[in-house]
C-alpha cells in the first residue's frame, strides 16, 4: 500500500480556501447591509436622510429618533410612541409561550410514555394544525373570540397564539421524549412516582435543550406575528408589530424615516436578544430532537 497522501476531501488548497472565505464574507456583508442602513439612519437627524446619502455614517450623532419612537411618536392618533404597545406584546408573548410550552411538554410526555389507542392519530391531527394557513382560521377565530367576549383584547391574542403554538410545541417535545428511555419511566413507576411526579422529577430536568428550542420558536413567531395582531387586537391592545405599522403609515406631517428605523429596530430587538442569549442551545436542541428521535 502506498503511503497515504494528504489528498483527501477535507484538505482544500490555499487558493480554494481564500475563495471560500471571500464568498462567505460577501454573503455576510450582503445580509448585514439592511441592518447597517437601519442602524445608521436611526441615529441621524432627519435632514441628513432626506438630504441624500443613506449609506453614509451620520455627521451629527443623535438618539432623539430612538426616544421619539419609544415614547412620543404619533401611533395612529395618539402621540404615545411604541412603549405601550411594546408592553402589550410582552403581555401577549410571555403567557402564550409559557402556556404553549407547558401544554406541549405534557402532550409530548403523554404521547410517548402513556401511549393509548389512537395516539398517533391525535398526534397527526395536532401536526396538521401546524400547516393550516393563518388566513383560513381568521373568521371562525373572530367568531369564537366574540362568543368568549375577549375580542380586541390581549387575552384574546394569547388564546389565538396558544391554539396555534400547541401543535409545534407538541411536535418538538414528542420527538424529544420519543428518544427518552421508557425504562426510566417504568423505574419511576415501580419507585411509586405518579403521573406528574414522573414528569416534574424525571423528564423535565432533562428537557432543557428542547425547551429552549420551543421557547425561541414560539417567541419569535408570536412576537413577529402581524396578521392576528391586526385582525383581533387593533387600537390600544395592538401588539408591537401593528403599532410599528401604524407608526410608519401615519399619514399626517413629515415622514420621519429616522424614527421609523429606530422603531423597526426596537420591534426586532427582543427576538434578536432571545437568539443571542439562547442561540447555541437552539442548534443543540434541534439536533437532539431530530437525530436521536
Amino acid at each position: 500500500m502506498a503511503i497515504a497522501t494528504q489528498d483527501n476531501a477535507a484538505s482544500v488548497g490555499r487558493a480554494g480556501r481564500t475563495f471560500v472565505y471571500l464568498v462567505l464574507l460577501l454573503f455576510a456583508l450582503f445580509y448585514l447591509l439592511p441592518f447597517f442602513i437601519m442602524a445608521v439612519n436611526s441615529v441621524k437627524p432627519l435632514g441628513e436622510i432626506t438630504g441624500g446619502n443613506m449609506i453614509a455614517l451620520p455627521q451629527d450623532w443623535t438618539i432623539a429618533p430612538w426616544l421619539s419612537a419609544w415614547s412620543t411618536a404619533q401611533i395612529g392618533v395618539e402621540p404615545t410612541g411604541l412603549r405601550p404597545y411594546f408592553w402589550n406584546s410582552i403581555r401577549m408573548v410571555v403567557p402564550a409561550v409559557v402556556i404553549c410550552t407547558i401544554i406541549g411538554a405534557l402532550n409530548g410526555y403523554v404521547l410517548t410514555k402513556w401511549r393509548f389507542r389512537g395516539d398517533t392519530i391525535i398526534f397527526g391531527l395536532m401536526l396538521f394544525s401546524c400547516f393550516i394557513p393563518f388566513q383560513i382560521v381568521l373568521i371562525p377565530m373572530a367568531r369564537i373570540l366574540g362568543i368568549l367576549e375577549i375580542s380586541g383584547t390581549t387575552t384574546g391574542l394569547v388564546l389565538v397564539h396558544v391554539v396555534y403554538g400547541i401543535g409545534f410545541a407538541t411536535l418538538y417535545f414528542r420527538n424529544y421524549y420519543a428518544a427518552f428511555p421508557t425504562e426510566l419511566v417504568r423505574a419511576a413507576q415501580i419507585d411509586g412516582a405518579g403521573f406528574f411526579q414522573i414528569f416534574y422529577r424525571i423528564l423535565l430536568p432533562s428537557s432543557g435543550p428542547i425547551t429552549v428550542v420551543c421557547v425561541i420558536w414560539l417567541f419569535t413567531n408570536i412576537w413577529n406575528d402581524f396578521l392576528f395582531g391586526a385582525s383581533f387586537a387593533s387600537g390600544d391592545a395592538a401588539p408591537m408589530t401593528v403599532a410599528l405599522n401604524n407608526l410608519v403609515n401615519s399619514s399626517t406631517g413629515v415622514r420621519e424615516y429616522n424614527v421609523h428605523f429606530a422603531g423597526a429596530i426596537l420591534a426586532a430587538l427582543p427576538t434578536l436578544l432571545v437568539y443571542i442569549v439562547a442561540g447555541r442551545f437552539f442548534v443543540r436542541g434541534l439536533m437532539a430532537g431530530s437525530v436521536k428521535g
Partner: protein
Amino acid sequence: MSFLDINNVTKSYGAVEVLHRVDIAVEEGEFLVLVGPSGCGKSTLLNMIAGLEGITSGEISIRDRVMNGVHPSKRNIAMVFQSYALYPNMSVAQNITFGLEMHGTPKSERDKALNDVAALLQIDHLLDRKPGQLSGGQRQRVAMGRALVRNPDVFLFDEPLSNLDAKLRVDMRTEIKKLHQNLQTTVVYVTHDQIEAMTLSTRIAVMFDGYVQQLGTPKEIYDTPENVFVATFMGSPAMNVVPARVEMVDGVPHARLTRSEDGHAFLAFAQDNMADWAGKDILLGIRPEAITDPEAADRDSNRIETLSNRVGVTEPSGADTFVTMTLGGKDVIARMRADTTVASGEMFDFAVNMEKAVAFNPQTEARIKP
C-alpha cells in the same frame, strides 16, 4: 400457595397470544431464571410480574395477594433494568432513595437505609456523583442499590448484565450470586445467556415461542432436557443431536449412527426401554463432554461405549480441546483433554458415556423418557 405464584397466565396483544398458559410457582428465597432466545416472552412475563404489562388471563400472586391490576409501586417488588434506568439528573444518593421518598419514608430512615445499602455494595464514595460520571459496573451497583433499599418481597432482574463487557459480567454474576446467598431474597431473573442461567439459578424456566419448555433445577435442565430445543439451547458448545436408528444387538438396544467412513457405529443404550423403539428412527443427544478420549472417560459410568471415527477439526481452547467429527451427517463436537494427542484426519477411538445420552422422538422432538 407459593410465595410467588404464576397461575395459568396468558398474554395477548390483540388476537396474537404471545404467552401461553404459564404456570410457575416460586418458593421464598428461590432464584428463578427465565431464559430463552429474544422474542420468547420472558421479558413480557417479567413485566407482568412487575405490573408494567397487563395480564390477559390467569393470576399472579405474591405472598397470597393477587396482583392482577395492582399498581407496580404497591406490589413491594423492585426491578433492575437492562439499561439500569438511573435518573440522569439525580445523584447516586437521590437515585437510591427516590423510591423511599415517593413512598413517604422520613428523611432519617432514608439516610440510614442509604448508608446500609451503600456499605453493602461498596458505593459509599460515589453517592454524590451523577450517573453519567459512573462506569458500567458502578452503574450496575447503583441500580442494584436502588432495588435493595426498598427491601422488597421479590427482586426482578431484566438482563442486568448484558450491557457489561465480558470480564465485568463474570464478576458481577458472582456478586449477584453472593448477594442472593447472603440476603436469601426471592429473585426472578431474565436473561438470554444460558451460562448466567446455569450459574445463578436455583431453578430455570426455559422459554421459547411463548411456552415454558421446561422448568427445573439447572441439573435437571442440563442432564434431562425435555425436548430438542432445551437440549440445544442450554450448554456451550450445544448438545450434539444426531439422527440414529435403534437396533437390537445381542438383545441390547443400540443406536446405529452413520459414520463419515463407510459403515455404521453402534452405541449401546444405558436405558432398557429403548428396546421399544427397535427398528425406529430417533434423535440421539450427546453432550460434548460425554464424548472424550478413553483415559478421560467418566469412571463412575457403567456404560462407556467406544466410537471409532475420523477426526475432523481440532480446536484447542486452553482448558479443553474441542474435536469436530461427522456423525449421522452432522458435525459432532467432542470435548477432549487439553493435552490430547489426536490429530486432524486420523481415525480415533472416542469414549462415549451413554449414561449421559438422551433420545428424542424425531416427530415431536420430545425426550423419550426411561
